[in-house]
């Protein structure tokens, strides 16, 4: 068992290293940060001096090695654009992304499961069909278009909600800032979290619906009905509970993508999170910020997968026997 975990952790580290290597080999194609850093009146000499100073004249493998050397000591370098430590900047921006992702995730789960059950039970009803048809929008329209449409409707035309930003935030503890405690912060959360959560909501809803339809056909549901158990109990206690295993797996995996795909939503709503930071970093070729962000996201995904792998072993004894038997 321990050997299995150690092996999995080892594999995860290898994946991280390779992600970093690929990322660093790509940075040269993003462009040259030097011209952004020096003004119009720079000389060729200034350009070369700065390039040497930043180590950009080195092969990417050397640059990558230097990054890793710093990263293992918790030092992710200094942003080219802001001239501040990357770790500080990411800590500053992380709460915005995490709060947005949390609200979107909760919305997606609540509405996804609720609507999924509803459309499964009333599969021939008008409301269920309307919901199913509209849910196609959630899967097929690109996020930025949904965001722009929401802004246009609720900010420009109706004037109910702010069109961008995070509103007023309150500082909690050392570095966490929250928008949950002010009215403007809560209002600012509504449109971006709908935009970000819509796809996941649709996905969960469709998954729950099909799983429910599957389960509702099972014999034990028929017997339960035959026994005269109330419809609500049949639907929620017996049917829904048994659809949860695949749904929970998918929700877990989607958690990572909510954070990673917040990039687009954050750009549309000028939401000051890490995704927007990353987009700005690409435009400026701010290599330390890009590298730290990509590593952070891959650590997150690798971590989630590692956790899922380990959990499976605990849940499913067959895997455990196989893995130790294979040794």
């Amino acid at each position, binding site marked *: 068992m321990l050997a299995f975990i150690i092996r999995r952790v080892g594999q995860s580290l290898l994946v991280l290293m390779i992600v970093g290597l690929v990322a660093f080999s790509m940075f040269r194609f993003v462009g040259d940060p*030097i011209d952004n850093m020096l003004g*119009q009146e*720079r000389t*060729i000499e200034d350009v070369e001096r700065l390039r040497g100073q930043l180590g950009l004249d080195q092969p990417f493998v050397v640059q990558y090695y230097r990054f890793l050397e710093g990263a293992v000591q918790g030092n992710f370098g*200094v942003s080219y654009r802001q001239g501040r430590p990357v770790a500080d900047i990411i800590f500053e921006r992380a709460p915005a992304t995490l709060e947005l992702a949390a609200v979107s995730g909760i919305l997606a789960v609540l509405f996804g499961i609720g609507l999924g059950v509803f459309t499964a039970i009333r599969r021939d009803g008008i409301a269920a069909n309307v919901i199913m048809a509209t849910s196609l929008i959630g899967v097929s329209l690109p996020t930025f278009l949904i965001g722009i449409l929401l802004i246009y409707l609720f900010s420009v035309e109706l004037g109910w909600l702010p069109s961008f930003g995070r509103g*007023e935030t309150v500082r909690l503890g050392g570095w966490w800032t929250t928008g949950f405690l002010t009215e403007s912060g809560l209002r600012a959360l509504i449109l971006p979290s709908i935009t970000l959560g819509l796809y996941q909501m649709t996905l969960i809803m469709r998954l729950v619906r099909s799983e429910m339809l599957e389960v509702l056909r099972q014999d034990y549901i028929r017997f339960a009905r035959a026994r005269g158990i109330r419809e609500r109990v049949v639907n929620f206690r017996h049917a829904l509970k048994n659809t949860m295993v695949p749904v929970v797996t998918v929700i877990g995996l989607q958690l990572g993508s909510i954070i990673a795909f917040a990039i687009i939503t954050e750009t549309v709503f*000028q939401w000051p999170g890490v995704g927007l930071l990353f987009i700005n970093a690409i435009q400026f070729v701010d290599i330390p910020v890009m590298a730290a962000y990509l590593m952070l996201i891959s650590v997150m995904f690798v971590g989630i997968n590692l956790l899922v792998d380990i959990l499976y072993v605990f849940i499913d004894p067959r895997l455990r026997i196989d893995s130790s038997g294979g040794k």
Partner: protein
Amino acid sequence: MRRSIAALVLATAALPLEAEEFTWAETTDPQTMDPHAVNSTPVLGFLNNVYEGLVRRGKDMGIEPALATSWEPIGEGEGWRFTLREGVSFHDGAAFDADDVIFSYERAASEAADTRSWFAPVAEVVKVDDHTVDFLTTAPNPIFPGSIANWMMMDSGWAEANGAARPDKENGNFATLNANGTGAFKLTTREPGLRTVLEPFAGWWDEAEHNLTRAELTPIQNPATALAALLSGDVDFINPVPIQDVARLQANPDVKVIQGIEARVIMLGFPHEAEALQYSADVEGENPFADARVRRAVAHAINVPAILQTIMRGNAEPANQLVSPAMDGFTEGLEGYAYDPDAARALLAEAGYPEGFGFGLKCPNDRYLNDEAVCQAITGMLAQVGLRATLDAMPVQNYWPELRADNFDMYLLGWSPGTFDAEHPIRFLAATPNDEKKLGSWNFGGYSNARVDALLPEIQSTIDAGARQAMLDEVARTLADEVAYVPLYVQPLVWGVRSNVELTQRPDNFFLLRWVTLD
């Protein structure tokens, strides 16, 4: 400290309604609050609200007294003597005097400063008394006072106490996030990339023309989001407005569009020095663009008014030289090359290319307004006379390295003279590249003309305005005759504001809060 700032922000937000709070959005967040660290429009434009120089530019770009009340040449062009304004204090209460000027000079001219090149003509700065400073120049320098309008004064005591005696762009320091100027507004909150809040400075030496009680800058990168923010009233001002949305905004009574022309001239450049074209399928081992007749043919083949009408929706003006008419030293009466495809074909035939030839056109796609669309239009127009351009458009961070590596047969360039003087583009674009003398650093094509090179130092050191203008005119005529570049148009400036806002637009694209009034 952090907590008290947050409390201050909350307190400010809760002010009564008559407070004139102003919010604006720009595409780029100023990357630092240090006035000497980065020489770029977003940084200098923003910091002009907080810091001040010895002189400043007025609404019409004219030079006027700021922290210096007067200035006069010393002797026969040995330098300039500035008399400092008395009774000026910094936002933290410290008094402004000659020591701060000396300190700011040392800081802004240091290795680590982006503004160092402004002081290339300066040999020494001497404190005469507490309110008089002499700038001794290596050669007579008539435009020196105007060239330091964006050189901002920092308090020596404040900078030294906070460990910011020199700018540090790479690692940042106290002055990267904090500011202490003498200007009309003081910095109260700085959250990079998020919001920057300014409040009027009660102790400002000048009389306030604005009626603001608070101003907040938020960067919004996505143009559609910025537009929505303006239309919904979440912000009072956005810069820029996408050209294609101008007509829509003009139809809306709640907002207005303020248009003007920027100082930036957009032009085409050529590989003057190259032995051969790099991206041609049919011309090998020769460089047709080395022939002035071919370059002239290019100038005749491009229908600039049509480009402006369609792509810029009539918001820009054609250019016939490297500077716009708003700049000092502009050459009057210069004839541009009119659109004349027949003349272009004749010139090509004369040069030995009756069938034209193929080549590669390099173009940025996110640097200038609608740059890629302009290049596409140019490609189509050149094809009409047989000049078959293959367009290669790319983001600006990939673009400059390509130009530096001479990977082009023709390229698009925009130039905005930092000094607002016609000498500036000559120094950077027309002078023969020379690293040692720091000349021609943006002359990617290696254009070289001995007469231009000889006139440049003369222009830089001639005090007599008439003689200086005559030399500038000669250079402008030479560059036009030889078609060193093909100037296309002066880039438009399009701002969008709520209709209750009055403000002043300057061709340097600086937005100054001291001229903003809210109804």
